[in-house]
Each structure stands twice: as structure tokens, then as C-alpha cells.
């Protein structure tokens, strides 16, 4: 079998950091090759070399047995390599056709449109070329991305974490599409961190860790446990742990209703309650009301109807964030660099925010920096935030896992009664994710009521004592742990 694309002993460094260390990788026509690894393992760097965005420091690229140089994205496209990025490279204000044209310079519009329609039909994609890309759903946007590279003549298709943003159902459909592509003779590289995709939908698996290739194997010779160990480099298995003690109701939402922004669904009569010493998981496909629910719980958004009560503090429906936080609410927001930390100020100052607002470091005209710093130093040690060379370092420099730990250190230092965690392990590696999970369990075991909103069903099932499913802005079903995965999956797609 000749390789469509072959990377020979490719190395790449970024300012002293060796992102790739002599990696071999190849893919053949008609094959789906899964590339597995954690964040920072070097998958993206390798693929960016394959599609011409980076030039390797060392090593060679071969196509069809001939050495080649790939000079930029245009050249890669001309050579038949197409990359579908994890974060879509679409112009929302452009129509579908304009997006395709942008990617296919120098060709008449009619011809491109004609070809696009033919290819769309071939991959089972029913699309109107005049629709603005921004009006498409996520899974349609992804198909448009694939269509874009196919129209450009891609015979080697690279998909970077393609199912990360899709529902289980759409993810399954995409895997079928991928197989269809391979069957028509394309070479497909599937970059993923989902084990089952690699095990059930690929022909070959390559595992990377810390810039090196760790293993290459057939899916038949692998099992999930072995694969995890290869990816992480050690044996980390998290098991569900039921709550030791569930107390009385701590927070109660009653028929909460909110209009959604910009065509989103919002919330429709959402009611649930969470008890002390309980983790209440909220499962659902992204975009079904999670953002609105988190905003309402944080006090950033106001519901149009319904009430929120916190035991001991009464009705807080219309209370702002400051009031709620004084009443024992802590939040781990979904986007830690946007909502959790202020990147431009120091690590110590980021930690000191809560204390400052609570008046612990003096009144409005005085800020006891010395005390704030010493408390920050202690908390950083207690919560094992690494990568802090000094307290005056800017928070933006922390890695994802350590940034999250800093957020948790700040939020948990006041022993909150209610914890809201929104996708707390998104983007973290397995070890950092497990550390975050440990903190959430510890808060629960201490007696806090924890609300976990996550689009990662595995995470919800692992941590939760009870699970509510958010679909179309409604709480469509509620389950007690241990729950049945297919039943939850079914509830997630109901109520369209």
C-alpha cells in the first residue's frame, strides 16, 4: 500500500520547547488513521506541518513516495491536503458559496457552485449555497468545512477533534461520513482524544505523548484501558464515588424561564433542587440552555419568570453576583480566561479578588497588599497551583490546568455552600481533570451543594449523585446515579 502522505522523522521546536521530536507518521489512501494524545502532545503541531502552516525544523515530507515541500496553506490545498480545524474557519457573515469560494481562489463561481452541489450530494449534505454560514447549525458548519476542502480537491483530509462540539448522534453521523470518504479513496487523518472513535472507526491508531510517537497499532489489538495508559503515560482511573451524606435542600429553582439571545433557546420552566452534600449534574448537548442556566445561577442574567431560593438566604432571584457570592455561592465558569481570571493582572491579585470584595484587606481606601499576597501564597500551595514563579506573574501565563486550580483556590477558600461548576475539566489533560474532580467531590463531602453543568456526559456520569438533562431549554428528565447511559442520551435529544 503506498502512502498518500508520509512524514519522516519530523521535529519542531518553539523557542526552546521541543513540540515534536523525530515523529514518523503516514496515511494511505482509503484509510482512516486516528491520531490520539492529550493536549500538548504535539498532535496539532504535526498536523499543522502536514497542512503547510508550519515548516518542520527537521525531517521530510513525502507524498506518493516523492519528497515534497509544502509552502503554506494554498500550496497544501493545491497538493490535495485539506484540514478541517477544530475551531471552524468560516466567515459567519458570508454565504455558504462565498465561504467555499474564499477557499478556492481563481476559479469561476459557477463552476465552484456546480461542483459543491455535486460533492455535497455525494456526502449526503443537503445545503442551500445562499444561506449565511452563521445561520447553520454546528454540525452543518462542520460539513461545510469538509465540503470546502473537498471542493478544493483534497485527497488527504485531516479532521482535528471533529466531534468535540457535536452531539452523540451527530458525532455518529460524522463517523459514517468519514468512513464514506475513505471508501471513495481519500486518506483521512482523525485527530481525537475520544478512545471509542479511534477504536471503532479507524483502521490504524497512532498515540503521541510529549512530542513523541509512543505507539502505532491496529484497533483490534487495543482496548480502552491500554490505550488510556499509552496516552496518559500512567494509570489514572476515576471511579464514581457516591455521596457520604445528603442533607436538606440548599438551592431550589422553580419554573425558571428566560428568553434566549440571538436565536438560542433560552430556558423554559426549569425546576430542580440540589441538596447539601450532593452533586447535581446537568447533562445535555451544548447550546440547549447551559449558558443561560449558568448565567442565571451566577446572577449575571435575570430570569423572565420563576424563582431561585437558597436555604438560609431566601429568594435570590433578582440578586446580583456580589450578593449571591456573599451568600455562599462559588462559581467555576466555563471559560476560565474570560470569566474566571483577569489575565492582565497578577496571580496574587486574581486570588485576592474575593477577599477584597469581602472587605478582608481593608476598606475602600485601603488595600492590604501584604496580607493579600501572603494569603495567596498559602492558597497556591494548598491548592497545588503550579507554574507560579512569583506572585507578581501575570495570570495569563498559567496553563489551563493551573489557571483552573487558581480559580478553584479563590472560589473554594470561603467554604461555599453552593458550587456552580460549568464544564470544569474542558481542555484539561486527564491528570488535571482528575484533580479538579477531586476538589468538587471534596466540596460535596464537606456538605456543599454542587451543580455541575457539563456537555461531557462521561464527566456528568462519573461525578453526579443525580442527573438532570437539559434539552431545548427544558429539563427533560432526571436520573439517579448510577444512571443508564443510553437513557440519558435519549433524553438529551428529545424535545426538539
Amino acid at each position: 500500500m503506498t502512502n498518500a502522505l508520509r512524514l519522516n522523522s519530523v521535529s519542531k521546536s518553539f523557542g526552546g520547547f521541543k513540540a515534536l521530536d523525530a515523529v514518523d507518521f503516514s496515511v494511505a489512501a482509503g484509510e482512516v488513521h486516528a491520531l490520539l494524545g492529550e493536549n500538548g502532545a504535539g498532535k496539532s503541531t504535526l498536523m499543522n506541518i502536514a497542512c503547510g502552516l508550519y515548516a518542520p525544523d527537521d525531517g521530510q515530507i513525502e507524498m506518493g513516495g516523492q519528497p515534497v515541500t509544502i509552502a503554506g496553506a494554498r500550496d497544501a490545498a493545491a497538493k490535495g491536503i485539506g484540514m478541517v480545524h477544530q475551531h471552524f474557519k468560516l466567515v459567519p457573515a458570508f454565504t455558504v458559496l462565498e465561504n467555499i469560494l474564499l477557499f478556492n481562489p481563481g476559479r469561476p463561481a459557477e463552476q465552484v457552485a456546480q461542483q459543491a452541489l455535486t460533492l455535497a450530494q455525494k456526502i449526503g449534505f443537503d445545503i442551500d449555497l445562499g444561506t449565511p454560514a452563521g445561520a447553520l447549525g454546528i454540525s452543518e458548519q462542520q460539513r461545510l468545512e469538509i465540503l470546502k476542502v473537498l471542493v478544493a480537491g483534497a485527497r488527504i483530509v485531516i479532521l482535528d477533534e471533529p466531534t468535540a462540539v457535536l452531539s452523540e448522534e451527530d458525532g455518529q453521523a460524522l463517523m459514517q461520513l468519514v468512513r464514506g470518504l475513505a471508501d471513495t479513496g481519500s486518506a483521512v487523518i482523525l485527530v481525537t482524544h475520544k478512545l471509542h472513535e479511534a477504536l471503532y472507526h479507524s483502521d490504524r491508531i497512532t498515540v503521541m505523548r510529549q512530542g513523541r510517537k509512543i505507539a502505532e497499532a491496529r484497533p483490534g489489538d487495543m482496548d480502552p484501558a491500554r490505550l488510556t495508559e499509552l496516552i496518559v503515560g500512567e494509570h489514572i482511573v476515576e471511579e464514581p464515588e457516591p455521596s457520604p451524606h445528603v442533607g436538606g435542600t440548599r438551592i431550589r429553582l422553580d419554573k425558571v424561564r428566560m428568553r434566549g439571545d440571538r436565536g438560542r433557546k433560552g430556558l423554559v420552566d426549569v425546576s430542580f433542587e440540589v441538596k447539601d452534600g450532593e452533586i447535581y449534574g446537568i447533562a445535555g448537548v451544548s447550546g440547549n440552555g447551559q449558558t443561560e442556566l449558568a448565567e442565571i445561577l451566577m446572577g449575571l442574567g435575570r430570569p423572565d419568570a420563576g424563582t431561585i431560593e437558597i436555604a438560609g438566604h431566601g429568594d435570590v432571584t433578582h440578586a446580583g453576583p456580589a450578593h449571591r457570592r456573599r451568600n455562599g455561592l462559588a462559581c467555576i465558569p466555563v471559560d476560565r480566561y474570560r470569566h474566571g481570571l483577569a489575565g492582565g493582572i497578577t496571580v496574587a491579585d486574581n486570588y485576592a479578588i474575593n477577599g477584597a470584595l469581602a472587605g478582608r484587606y481593608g476598606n475602600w481606601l485601603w488595600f492590604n497588599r501584604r496580607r493579600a499576597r501572603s494569603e495567596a501564597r498559602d492558597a497556591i500551595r494548598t491548592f497545588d497551583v503550579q507554574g507560579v514563579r512569583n506572585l507578581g506573574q501575570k495570570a495569563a501565563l498559567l496553563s489551563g490546568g493551573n489557571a483552573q486550580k487558581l480559580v478553584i483556590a479563590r472560589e473554594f477558600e470561603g467554604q461555599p455552600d453552593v458550587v456552580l461548576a460549568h464544564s470544569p475539566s474542558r481542555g484539561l489533560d486527564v491528570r488535571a481533570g482528575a484533580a479538579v474532580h477531586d476538589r468538587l467531590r471534596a466540596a460535596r463531602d464537606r456538605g456543599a451543594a454542587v451543580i455541575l453543568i457539563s456537555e461531557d456526559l462521561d464527566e456528568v456520569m462519573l461525578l453526579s449523585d443525580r442527573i438532570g438533562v437539559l434539552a431545548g431549554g427544558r429539563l427533560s428528565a432526571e436520573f439517579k446515579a448510577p444512571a443508564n447511559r443510553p437513557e440519558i442520551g435519549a433524553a438529551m435529544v428529545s424535545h426538539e
Partner: protein
Amino acid sequence: MSDFLVNWLINIPSFAAPFAIAALGLIITERAGVLNLAAEGLMLAGALAGVGLMINGAPPMVALGGAAMAGMAMGLVFAIMTAGLRINHVISGLALVFFAEALTSYIASAERWTNKAIQGLEPVFLGQDVIVYATPVLCLLTVWMLNRTRFGLTLRAVGENPGAADAAGIDVTATRFAAILIGAALIGLAGGYLTVAVSRIWVDSVIGGRGWIAIALVIFARWHPWRALFGAVLFGCIEALIPRIAAAGVDVPRYFLQMTPYLATLAVMIWAAARGKDRWSQPAALGHHHIREERG
């Protein structure tokens, strides 16, 4: 009364044309994602070049061409600052306006061009000059360029999502340079028109905030050329009315009358903001730099 109306109407086009041309230049720049607060400075450069060339004996059309070139030269400085060195667009714009104010005032006084009357651009038809007739054509060309050409597609992609443009192999920096230079030429032309055809004299404050008004006009027009043309006519009406009212002997304090263009601009901005809370029409990447993420 009919005298008043005729006098008013005949003067509207030459007041509207510089607003319209400057707005077109701003639209081209901003549709590529560059927040252009430098308009006042670019117009000053064009205005001075126009006067300088006229004083040195150039025919009006050559002076206007020179004004466009001067705008472009000043635009190059702005392009280097924003697209090249990725300086904050607000700081770049302000710094350029200050720089242009100082430079034009310096050159004008060093060359003794201040307060020297020039011949000016003559009307060709119905009391209007060539540039007035060229304005709708320029508008048409801008619309065609933005919506019907490959360059327009590229330019808009860079303004909406530079990351996507980059992934499609487009040189974001080069595109922005081009957009700024073309836009600056138009804005410089608008400035040159103000001195060569309207004021026919240079004083330091000759632009008098029209660059800022043009920026507001673009927001009002939601970055759309035809709507900008409409807005320019509206402002032309107001500006043309001011001297008419004074001439007609209506008793309104003179300086209050002179406030009206600025107050009207404010009103227009408030109106635009109040009705369009959704900013779907603003280029999504307006004012944002693009740096390809390079990480391991």
C-alpha cells in the same frame, strides 16, 4: 423664498461629496477590519496637498490627484502602525490625527500657504463640478469591488474572520495594507476637494471635524456604501443650510448655528445605536489584530 431654496439646493452636492467620498474610503478600510479613526488626519493631508499644488500652478484635477496621493502617503504611516506594528487602532488613529495636524500646520506656515486664496475647481454642468458627478460612480465602484470581485471577497473575509482568511491562504497583513491605502487615497481626495473646490483657501482648521463626522456617518450607514451616500447628502443639506440661514437674515446666534453639524452627528450616532443593538453589520473583526497562534 424660492431664491433661498435654489441657493440651498445648488450648494448641497458640493457639501455632500466630501462626506460621501471620505465615508467610502472609511468603509473600504473598516470592512477589512481596521478601525480607522485617522480620517481627520488623512483629510488634512489631502487638503494641504491640494492647496499646495494649486498655489504652485497645478490644474485642479492634478491637485486633486495629488491630494489622493498625499492621503495615501499618510495612510501608509497608519498602515505601518496598525497592520504592520499592530499598535492599538485607537491609539494609532489618534496619534496619526495629531501628527497630521502638526505636520500640515507646520508645512503650511513654513511654505506660507496659509490664507492664500486659490482659483478652485469650476462647475461643469448644472452648477456642479466633476467630482460631484464622480461621487455616485465611486460609490458604485466601491459596491462592485466589495461584492463582485475576488479582492472584495478577500477584504471582507479579513474583516470578518482573519483566522479563516489566514487558513484559506490569504495574507491578512497585505490585504489590510491594501485596504488602508485605497481608503486613505479616497479620504485624501475628500480632503483635497474641501480646499480645492469648497473653501479655496487653507487655514489650519479647514477640515473642522468633518473626518470625525464621516466616521459617525459610516456607523450610521452600517458600513454600506449606498446608505453612506444617503447620509452624506443628509449632512450636505445641513451644512449647506447654515450659510443660507445667516444670509436670509434669520436671527439665530451664529455660533449656535455652527454647532448643528456636530449635534446632528451626535443625534445620528444615538439613533444608530438605539435602533441597532445587534451589531450584525459591523465587521466582526473591526479593531482586532491578527496573530497566527504558534504553540506546541
